[in-house]
């Protein structure tokens, strides 16, 4: 390395120690809470003071000896005095520089800067914390150092707002997206852990006295059902309100802008996130449309980024977070945005959708009906009853409907430049993968597939964080699947050779 003699000289923001303290406390929260809980029984927790002093000292120590700098070939970070660690991240390897600002960050005018690379999470750096100006400078200088092309663009730096969500849109997002459930689950989980549920049952027993229960029961069936409906409606309403509130907190002021040649999103009410989506790194676009989306005539659009990290440690660090292109947009607008995000793909042509194998319907139907039958028979045997056979009777028509919908809404299309795959009837999902982003193609033949001369095709791309995002086209005729695999293989290899810049990009 030519950077051997380079000494980083930039320092962290003077308030960094505060955030370091928070980080330490967050790491130690479980043992600390346990110790405080058990320790509090025998009087005042005097032992807390030395612990606090050690944490404070460690935080100050970290800030004092932390240096970063922009070397000739990469970002250099030096930590520690006795155990010294020097980390170098080549500019070419830096994928994203994201900033995250919680309420405290914003009060102090600082930001936590995350430097992401394409590897699974090792060479990543989190600079905690920098002043806003320093963070912006770092971002600009890193991207400027990336090479001539980027430098050219910085000269005529223009921010071009592609999408700005109004508050009404964010509220709509909250109504559609059932995040309230996550909040409730989280709160219930937390309360349960904290032992509040025990207390709650005591309170409930005291409030709902036996007389009240008796009176309710005496009211008769209609009133009972009405009460239940009211409770259910109330629950749904509360969930929606929570969802909207959560959406407002997370997505307030969502904007998608074009800066130089990259896209940048920033959003959040208290914690403000600013994420860079570099066009070179975008691997695939996902469009989701649930039933509620259709009611509002909207879709949600996400993109996969290389190095977005499917690895568990990356997800723990919150790097697996969703990269929204548009949490909510009208379908036409969404198309334009996707066209911006995937400039290699020609969206002017009409997509020629291909169906699955004509025999797919039979297989899906039989599979589903078999499942219903097994469950029905299982219950019948276990309970020594006849009613489970009803399950089988109901299961067959349901399976037929399901198979018809499944076959009708699962479609794929191969263009010169991209593979399209959509599926789902109630929740419709569309994935668009530029062909030069394909990593591995895997043709699979299960014993059933072989019987029907069919195959399934998996198309692997980088950055598909969850298994549901990965492309698997099932029930293809074997010849069709082979042809498709062959076509994808050749272009995955060939197109990258034509554009060597992409090799580094993926």
């Amino acid at each position, binding site marked *: 390395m030519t950077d051997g003699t380079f000494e980083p000289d930039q320092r962290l923001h003077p308030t960094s120690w505060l955030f370091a303290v928070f980080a330490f406390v967050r790491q130690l929260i479980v043992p600390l809470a346990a110790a405080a809980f058990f320790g509090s029984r025998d009087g005042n927790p005097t032992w807390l003071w030395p612990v606090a002093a050690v944490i404070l000292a460690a935080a100050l120590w970290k800030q004092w000896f932390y240096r970063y700098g922009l070397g000739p070939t990469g970002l250099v970070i030096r930590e520690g005095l006795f155990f010294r660690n020097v980390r170098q991240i080549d500019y070419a390897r830096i994928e994203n520089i994201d900033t995250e600002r919680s309420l405290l960050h914003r009060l102090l005018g600082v930001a936590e800067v995350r430097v992401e690379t*394409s590897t699974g999470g090792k060479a990543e750096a989190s600079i905690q914390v920098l002043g806003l100006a320093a963070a912006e400078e770092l971002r600009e200088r890193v991207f400027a150092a990336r090479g001539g092309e980027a430098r050219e663009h910085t000269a005529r730096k223009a921010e071009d707002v592609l999408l700005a969500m109004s508050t009404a849109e964010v509220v709509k997002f909250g109504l559609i997206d059932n995040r309230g459930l996550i909040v409730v689950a989280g709160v219930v989980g937390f309360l349960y852990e904290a032992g509040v549920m025990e207390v709650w049952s005591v309170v409930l027993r005291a409030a709902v006295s036996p007389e009240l229960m008796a009176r309710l029961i005496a009211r008769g069936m209609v009133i009972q059902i009405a009460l239940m409906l009211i409770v259910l409606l109330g629950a749904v309403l509360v969930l929606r309100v929570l969802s909207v509130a959560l959406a407002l907190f997370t997505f307030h002021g969502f904007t998608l802008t074009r800066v130089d040649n990259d896209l940048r999103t920033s959003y959040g009410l208290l914690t403000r996130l600013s994420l860079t989506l570099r066009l070179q790194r975008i691997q695939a676009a996902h469009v989701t449309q649930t039933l509620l989306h259709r009611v509002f005539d909207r879709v949600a659009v996400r993109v996969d980024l*290389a*190095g977005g990290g*499917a690895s568990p440690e990356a997800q723990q660090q919150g790097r697996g977070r969703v990269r929204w292109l548009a949490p909510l947009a009208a379908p036409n607008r969404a198309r334009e945005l996707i066209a911006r995000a995937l400039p290699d793909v020609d969206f002017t042509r009409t997509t020629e959708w291909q169906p699955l194998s004509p025999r797919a319907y039979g297989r899906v139907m039989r599979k589903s009906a078999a499942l219903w039958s097994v469950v029905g028979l299982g219950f019948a045997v276990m309970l020594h009853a006849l009613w489970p056979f009803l399950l089988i009777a109901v299961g067959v028509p349901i399976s037929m409907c399901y198979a018809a919908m499944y076959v009708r809404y699962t479609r794929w299309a191969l263009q010169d430049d991209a593979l399209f795959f959509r599926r789902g009837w109630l929740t419709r999902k569309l994935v668009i993968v530029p062909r030069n982003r*394909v*990593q*591995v*193609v*895997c*043709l*699979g*033949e*299960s*014993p059933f597939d*072989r019987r029907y001369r069919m195959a399934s095709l*998996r198309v*692997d*791309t*980088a*950055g*598909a*964080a969850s*298994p549901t*995002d*990965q492309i698997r086209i099932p029930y293809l005729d074997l010849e069709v699947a082979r042809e498709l*695999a062959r076509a994808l*293989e*050749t272009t*995955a*290899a*060939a197109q*990258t*050779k034509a554009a*060597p810049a992409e*090799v580094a990009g*993926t």
Partner: protein
Amino acid sequence: MLDQRVDPATVSVWRVETTAIAVFIAFSCAGPLLEDSIVLAVAVFCAVMVISVPLGWWWSKARYERLSYRVDDLGVTIREGVWWWTHKSVPRVRIQHTDVSQGPLQRRYGVATLKLYTAGSRYTKVELEGLRHEDALALRDRLLSKEAQGD
């Protein structure tokens, strides 16, 4: 280039491995019965072995028969699977780095596993098991040299 087979010696490696697994399963089935009756435990042990050892031997052979690979200008293609057949193609330009690894058993029989790492999500690591060690090294070098030429 035509599809190539791996080294037949790998069948022995897999046979030893499956036999070891069979012994382990037989022990864990028979172990809890030992307190009740020794005869029953021995009978269960033998029964499990009689079923699983030949199965393992057959499976090792079948796996070898099914496993083939091809290396061409585009990349590496691997066919494998006894019940679930797969046909994986890894484009050469997508190979990030490679490993050649050898377990103690593999070393005894002179075979190795070639691991190809990609930036993908599901197939971040594609393994080709059972190559002769020299062949694995040669193949790795070949992939690396072509990679360098491509850039």
